[in-house]
């Protein structure tokens, strides 16, 4: 028996052994968990200039996505590619309150890549985290009588039984505006309730944080979404620091599987309300 046949035999043996686990049989039948498929998928998510060295060290046949022609296409960088390549190497991969120096570097990178002025601290206000895990939230009721069927996207998410921290977005369906529609569609959630001065300065802070514009960036794939704070949470015990509407999570490509991921979460300095809500696709 030659070496190739011996390796093939060993691979077949291990594959059979894996198939004895009920869940594994199901997954491996779909072939999505084969090493090659996983590397291809992972590479699609991670490929970027800062990762080339690590990829080459893996010592295996790399997927076609890593051919020189792919590297060339990376150069024609879109906003998300620029963000991915520039933020990946400098963003902590754990929930963090950024130091002033770290925050400044990240703010500058985002400004250069997107034209958006972000701030870790704005008007003296700062969240407990600027890097943290974001989770998939349900739709919020926008006006009395609003139902899930009235929401035009991601109905699979369901609708929260209670109201957001600021109540309805509009007093009634007849007063429901496009601005309200966009605010619910692109809402985010932060743990304002855990701010050290929340209870003492409740009225002032509630008004300051209500619909405050936030830029959420997924440093893994460089997607970015302009959102407004639409609710308070999640609870400490969830292990998450932020939340995103179903549409926000979809735009960040965090709407499948565990529906959670590490993001940058920064205030947008937009006193004249000029920056539109939704995914950032071009530099402004």
């Amino acid at each position, binding site marked *: 028996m030659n070496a190739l046949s011996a*390796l093939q035999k*060993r691979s077949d043996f291990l594959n059979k052994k894996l198939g004895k686990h009920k869940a594994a049989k199901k997954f491996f039948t779909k072939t999505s968990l084969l*090493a090659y498929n996983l590397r291809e998928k992972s590479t699609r998510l991670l490929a970027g200039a800062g990762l080339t060295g690590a990829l080459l060290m893996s010592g295996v046949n790399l997927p076609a996505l890593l051919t020189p022609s792919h590297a060339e296409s990376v150069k024609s960088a879109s906003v998300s590619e620029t963000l991915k390549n520039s933020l990946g190497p400098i963003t902590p991969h754990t929930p963090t309150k950024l130091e002033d120096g770290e925050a400044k570097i990240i703010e500058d990178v985002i400004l250069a890549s997107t034209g958006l002025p972000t701030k870790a601290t704005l008007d003296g206000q700062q969240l407990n985290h600027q890097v943290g895990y974001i989770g998939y939230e349900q739709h919020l009721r926008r006006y009395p009588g609003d139902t899930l069927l009235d929401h035009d996207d991601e109905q699979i998410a369901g609708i929260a039984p209670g109201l957001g921290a600021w109540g309805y977005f509009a007093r009634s369906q007849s007063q429901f505006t496009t601005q309200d529609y966009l605010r619910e569609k692109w809402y985010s959630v932060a743990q304002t309730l855990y701010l050290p001065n929340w209870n003492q300065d409740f009225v002032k802070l509630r008004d300051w944080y209500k619909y405050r514009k936030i830029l959420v960036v997924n440093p893994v794939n460089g997607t970015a979404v302009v959102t407004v704070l639409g609710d308070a949470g999640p609870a400490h015990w969830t292990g998450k620091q932020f939340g995103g509407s179903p549409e926000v999570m979809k735009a960040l490509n965090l709407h499948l599987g565990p529906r959670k991921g590490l993001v940058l979460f920064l205030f947008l300095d937009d006193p004249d309300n000029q920056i539109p809500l939704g995914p950032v696709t071009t530099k402004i």
Partner: protein
Amino acid sequence: MSIIFYDHLVDKTEVILLIENSNQLENHKGKMKQLVDDIIHQGLIEYILQKLHPHQHHTFLSRLENAPYDPELISYLKDHASVDIEGELQREAEKLIREIKKDLST
């Protein structure tokens, strides 16, 4: 950064060099390198599934499928399989590589 979450625990350099320096046909060398990757992957996943409770298999495999690079997979395994899962996977990978080297010498 790992492409699959365990990559940093596996050193395939020696077997890859053995294949590269062998007198196999070029297309066979490519196939052999892919098989090495498959064997280590199958072996490590099988090892992990043995360590996890069957109720956790679906969760682990779903998370792996969704984000193969995610370092949190190691944290999940530390919580649910073994606190020294990194050391164990490293040793399991070394065992698999020894077996692969035997195959390559046939």
